[in-house]
Structure formats: structure tokens, C-alpha cells
């Protein structure tokens, strides 16, 4: 009985650990990130970035040209969104959005990390995912 109780406690602790695990640091983000569609974002140490060939339709639902790709640059920072979720904020003169962070494992919270934004409704689980090179 005590053994079963102990296993439950260990399980819950591991679960909680897995939930709070996986908080990438700024240094983990420095580098070049690429997506499957050829888009690229270079995140620099000085908190600036250069984005190339980004699909606008994933950032702006109103765009008429679904094939439009754009280059832009600006600043980035690790911050939290309205719900205290850790995100990488990307901000340029034209576009601003939050990169969500996912990792490996069943709950996706272990390094190496991926950066993604949702394409359309998050319920569809369609991600515009960038993988560090």
C-alpha cells in the first residue's frame, strides 16, 4: 500500500516537473532557424533579427496574395504572453507576433527547441515551425 502511494507521488512529481521543464534561455535561441517552406530567421545576440522569405498568409489572414513572401528585420525578446506563457516576441516595423516554444518528448518540453506560430485556429494544430540549424 505504501509502495503504491509512493509511486503515485513520484509520478505526480515527475508530471509536474515535465510541465515546468523546458524553459530555453536567450543563449539557446541565438542562431539561424529555418522552416520547411524555405523561410529563415536569424536571431542575433544583440537582440535583433533578420527574417527572410516569410509566408505572409501565416501572419496576416487578410492578405490577398497567399503566395506572398517578405523579408523584414527588427528586435526580439523572451517575454510572456497575456497568459504568462513564455514566448519569443518578434517585432518589426511591419509585423509583430509571438513565437511559441516547443521541444521534444511526450509533452514537447525538452530541448532541442523549435519555434512556431499557429497557422489559423490553434485547434487545428497547424504550426509554422522553425528549427534551429
Amino acid at each position, binding site marked *: 500500500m505504501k509502495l503504491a502511494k509512493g509511486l503515485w507521488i513520484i509520478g505526480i512529481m515527475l508530471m509536474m516537473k515535465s*510541465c515546468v521543464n523546458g524553459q530555453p534561455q536567450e543563449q539557446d535561441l541565438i542562431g539561424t532557424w529555418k522552416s520547411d517552406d524555405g523561410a529563415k530567421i536569424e536571431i542575433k545576440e544583440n537582440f535583433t533579427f533578420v527574417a527572410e522569405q516569410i509566408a505572409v498568409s*501565416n*501572419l*496576416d*489572414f*487578410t492578405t490577398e496574395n497567399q503566395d506572398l513572401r517578405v523579408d523584414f528585420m527588427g528586435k526580439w525578446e523572451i517575454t510572456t504572453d*497575456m*497568459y*504568462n*506563457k513564455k514566448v519569443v516576441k518578434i517585432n518589426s*516595423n*511591419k*509585423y*509583430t*507576433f*509571438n513565437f511559441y516554444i516547443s521541444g521534444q518528448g*511526450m*509533452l*514537447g518540453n525538452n530541448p532541442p527547441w523549435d519555434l512556431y*506560430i*499557429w*497557422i*489559423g*485556429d*490553434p*485547434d*487545428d*494544430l497547424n504550426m509554422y515551425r522553425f528549427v534551429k540549424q
Partner: protein
Amino acid sequence: MKKYILLFTLFLSFGLSFAQTKDSLSVEEQEKRKRNIEAGNPFKKFGYTPKIATLSKGKYLEWHDLDSIVRIGSYSFHVKKKDITGYNTDEDKNSESTLRPELTSRWLSPDPLAEEFPSWSPYNFVYNNPIRYTDPTGLAPEDWVKKDGKWTWDENITSAEQAKAAGYDDYRAPGSIIDNAMINGKTGSGGKTSVYLGQNSNDVSFTYPNSTVTPFQVGTEWLSGNGPRNREFTNGDFFTELLKTHDHIEGVRGNILAEIANGAEVGKTGSAPYGLGGVQGVGKYVKDYSTLATAGQTGNLAVTYLGSYGLTWNITGISNGTATVQFTATNSSTMQSASRPPILGYTPLWQNTMGSAINNYFSSGWGSRTTQTFNWTETLKIN
């Protein structure tokens, strides 16, 4: 003796008869008889001349009744045997469209759907424009197009430009909703004052207009599989106005104003989806679905149905201490999204196993995917 005399007479008669026939025919008469016989040769165009039966040996042009075999459309039909005797590759049933004058046909009756097209002759075919249109069903041109106040389906038209060029008054893509419309002269009941023009000519039904439809009614459409599978809402629609009161939208407004305070200008675009994944999603779940327990006193009924939704915004104007912002929210309703558990349901593991299996099972019919898009404009006061 009499017997020999009779035989002699007979031979003489035949001989004289034969000699007279052969000798009395002029060259012209012989050519004429030859032509008359050849006229009965059905294989002449193939260069083959079989033995041709003739009663007058070509003296007269003999005509054989072939009406027992008649041509109906592409088929040869034997009217006495009641059987199809052949198939003709020449598509002569629509000879007006083939532009081949050697093929003739005629209308057997006025168009039975003539009342549907009062401005057109009941004997016209594809609006007298066979190059532009086809009519595979033989009933009516097919895609939702409007002429003289009536909507019909025309599969050859896929854009408003095409419809306009073809002389139609209006165009709607499959899946559209027409407000204040009738079906066969009848109006809908119970608030269903609009007509849904679906994916084919038979997919037509009364439905709620976008302006008044509630999240519950949209949910019923999704669950039942009946009615529109996509709705596009705008300013003033009940559903839109409800969504605008969501805490998330209010938070985004604050973020936009902060952006403007930090120098954002007209044209700036942002993405701010509302998601229910992760540990943070649990609290949102509880709040969003609390409407069901409190009869709408808490939470937001729009979001109770939508769950998560995509959201982008665009600053379209800044002047006199106000900013004009265009918001666009998108939502899809699937059985996977409706049935997924918190946290685990938003992981790749769930999506690639249970989630995809559920969506595949509900790929059509009741519970199949529906989508909603909300476009609205707001004027935000800059502090």
C-alpha cells in the same frame, strides 16, 4: 407433235425476248440502269459492290424502306424489334453545338424548365452560347448564378468575373448564404430566413442569417452536418459582437495601443491567436465552459463554442487620437477539437494518434469540419 410445237414456241419466245432486251437498250439506258442499281449499294463508299437484289433490273430507281431503324441521339433503334442496333460516334443530339450542318436534329419539346429562365427562349440551348457553356445533365446550366431574380447552378462558372461576362446578374460560390430568399416561392420559418446554396444543385436549404445566428445554432449545424459548413461574420452580427467582448480580444486591444504608443504606424500587422494548449489552457477551459454551468452568466458563449481561434489585426488608420484596426478571427470546428482533453490533447502525440483518427472518422456528415471567419473593424481611442 403438239408437244414439239409447244417447246419450239417457248424457246423462240425466250430467245426473242432476250435478244430484244439486250439489243434494244441504248447506251444511255444501260448507264441509267447501272446507276439505279448502284444507288441501292450501301457499301459503295467502301468500294465494294455485292450482288444487289432488284425487281426491275435497274429499270426503275428502287427505294427500300429503312424507317424501321431510326436514330435517337447517339443510338440506332429498331422500332419493330424494340432493340438498339448500333451506337453512333457522331454526337448529333446537340448538333446546334457541333457547328456541323450535315447533322440535323430538332427539339422534341419546349424546355421543361422554361419557367426557370423566363428571359430565354424555351428552345434555346446553353444560352445560345455552346462555346462558353455545356449542359451535361440536360436540365439546366450548372455553379450558383443569378438571372432575373432566380439562382441556378452553373458548373462552368467559378468566379464573379465569369458570371458577369456571361450575362448573369450575380454570382455566389458554393456554400454561400443568401439572405431573405425563398425556395420555390416559399419562405423559411423559425428565424431561418436565409437560403444556403450548397455544393451542388440539390444542396439547398433554409438557414439562419449570419446576422442573427447564435453560437448554439452554429454548433447545431456542425453537429448535425446540415446547413452551411462555413460562415463569414462581420461587424454587427450577433456572433461577432459576442466574440468582441471576449477577454482575449480586450487584451489584444491593449497590446495594439501599447504598440502604437511605442511608434507603430499604419500598416502594422500582428498575430495574437487564442489557444487552449498547455497548462495555461486549463484555466481558460474552465472559464470558457463555465457558461454552460452558469447559463451564460460567466465566460463568453461565443468562445464556449469556438474554443481556440486564430486572430490577426491590422492598423488601417491613425488620426485625431484614434486608431482604426481591422480584426480577423478564424475558427474551425472538428470532432478532434471538441473531444480533446486539456494539455495532453494539444500534444503532437495526441494529434498524430487519437486526434487524426477522430477527424478521419468524422470527415463527412455530422460532426465534420466547419469553419467560421470573423472580420470586423474597430476604432480604438489612443490615450
